[in-house]
């Protein structure tokens, strides 16, 4: 109960802080913060697969980019559409792709699953590169954000502050729902399947079905992030569906840590801020990021969130014999 109260205070604080950001931050930093929020959803969705379900996917960018393209194409080819309709079109595309690909991958786990996702990702990437007339090939697609139509009023989100607020509300609320999801029947089912899938089957769970639903759900979440990515940069190209983009989300998730819900969000913060900082300093930033990743995997496999939890335990003397609790245990989630 007390914990619930704490979460509430934390949330309220975050929402208040989020609302004040356009006043506090420069345009440049607000731009980066918007990017961070969008990638946070992408990374959280990735971790629902990796950390919660134990599924290593190399194809997650497929949904991100597909939805980004669908939103961009909707804007280009149907000029009258409102912003939320174009987002919904992106979402629909990623849900359909998630369901179809998920149905094909359903029975595979472990390295087969990883390789098959990689194959699908390569397929989508090839299409994005070659199908020049639709995807713009190497040039990508430039778009202009349409207005947000709320029925009673039409609001322009061409300005950064307005778009930031929209992102904060829609993407932020989705991230909060993802946290809630980990507490729901389906969220718990996913965790238990990782722990002991066989026993779940003998308790009446159709684990293949559950995996398909989860895969589709995380694809849809990545899709929502991808639509906002396209809207934020007012641009989308084959970069968004590339293996590179999957690597980025994988790095973010790993750097932050897969064992806590908020780990990947922390990872996104660190990754994007670091990347911006480093890319100002040197052209070799990608190389340095690579080294950091190798270092993290070798020496801090639990990610930054694990480091923080350990420090917390030292400081507040909260003894926990199992060390850092895994997400499977009841309290470890926040």
């Amino acid at each position: 109960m007390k914990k619930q109260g704490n979460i509430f205070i934390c949330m309220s604080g975050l929402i208040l802080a989020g609302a004040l950001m356009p006043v506090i931050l420069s345009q440049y930093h607000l731009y980066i913060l918007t990017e961070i929020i969008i990638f946070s959803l992408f990374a959280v969705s990735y971790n629902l697969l990796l950390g919660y379900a134990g599924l290593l996917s190399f194809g997650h960018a497929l949904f991100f980019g597909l939805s980004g393209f669908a939103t961009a194409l909707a804007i280009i080819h149907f000029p009258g559409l409102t912003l939320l309709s174009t987002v919904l079109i992106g979402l629909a595309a990623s849900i359909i792709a998630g369901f179809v690909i998920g149905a094909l991958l359903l029975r595979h786990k472990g390295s087969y699953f990883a390789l098959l996702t990689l194959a699908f990702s390569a397929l989508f990437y090839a299409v994005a590169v070659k199908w020049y007339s639709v995807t713009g090939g190497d040039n990508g697609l430039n778009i202009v954000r349409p207005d947000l139509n709320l029925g009673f009023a039409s609001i322009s989100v061409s300005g950064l502050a307005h778009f930031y607020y929209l992102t904060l509300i829609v993407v932020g609320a989705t991230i909060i729902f993802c946290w809630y999801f980990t507490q729901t029947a389906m969220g718990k089912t996913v965790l238990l399947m990782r722990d002991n899938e066989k026993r779940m089957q003998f308790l009446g769970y159709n684990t293949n079905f559950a995996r398909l639903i989860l895969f589709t759900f995380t694809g849809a979440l990545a899709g929502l992030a991808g639509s906002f990515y396209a809207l934020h940069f007012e641009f989308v190209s084959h970069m968004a569906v590339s293996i590179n983009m999957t690597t980025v989300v994988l790095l973010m998730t790993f750097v932050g840590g897969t064992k806590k819900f908020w780990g990947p969000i922390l990872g996104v913060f660190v990754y994007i801020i670091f990347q911006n900082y480093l890319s100002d300093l040197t052209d070799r930033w990608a190389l340095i990021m690579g080294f950091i990743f190798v270092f993290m995997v070798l020496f801090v496999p639990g990610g930054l969130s694990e480091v923080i939890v350990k420090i917390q335990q030292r400081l507040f003397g909260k003894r926990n014999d199992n060390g850092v609790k895994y997400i499977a245990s009841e309290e470890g989630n926040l």
Partner: protein
Amino acid sequence: MSDYFHVRDIHKDFSGMKVLTGVDFKVRKNERHAVIGPNGAGKTTLFNIMSGDLKPSSGIILYKGKDVSGKPPHILNRSGLSRSFQITNVFQQLSVFDNILSGVRSRYGLRYHFFKRPDRDHHLIEKVEALVAEVGLTDVKDQPASSLSYGQQRALEIGVTLSTEPELILLDEPTAGMTHEETVQAIKLIDKVTSGRTLIIIEHDMDVVFSLADTISVLYHGTILVSDSPEKVSNDNRVKDAYLGEG
């Protein structure tokens, strides 16, 4: 209802190795039915087939008048059949409470819900508490399964098996690794918690088997030697020769 559960001419071979060579027996509703037989006789394999874990090479299984051979475990569970494992097979990282909850919520249809939280459902919580108490684990209900003693783990294994409120219960050596005294206690518990339901149990302790079971099926070399009342089985010459004679 003699055809409540009917195993008919089940064969199973693993890439050429014949483990079951025509298994036949019937279980009546509300019966306590024991399956005995030496190690490696194929008892667990038979359970794996009956619970949907393995498909038989041939033969059928009639459950409530329907052929269920080859049906997946989750479908069988939903039709009221639940099994335990010879080697404890629970959620090691979860508390006793959450272990039981995983089955209870499945029984009440809360498997994939995106909005409802099972741990906030008072009806489910009451059911879980009651079952935890029944298997005698109330004192340790918030402890992770991995921290339990061996006996407690075995009790939890039974609790998880019962958590979907099955009408037909398959227990695979629930007392494996226990002393005779512990076994007697465990069987008392099993007798209590499965009353009013159908029980098929694999058990080694002969005293216990003869006091508990209404019917005993003896599995030997992949087939059922005899399936009858304890008195008849203990007087059967083939059984004496093949199995009891050794011990």
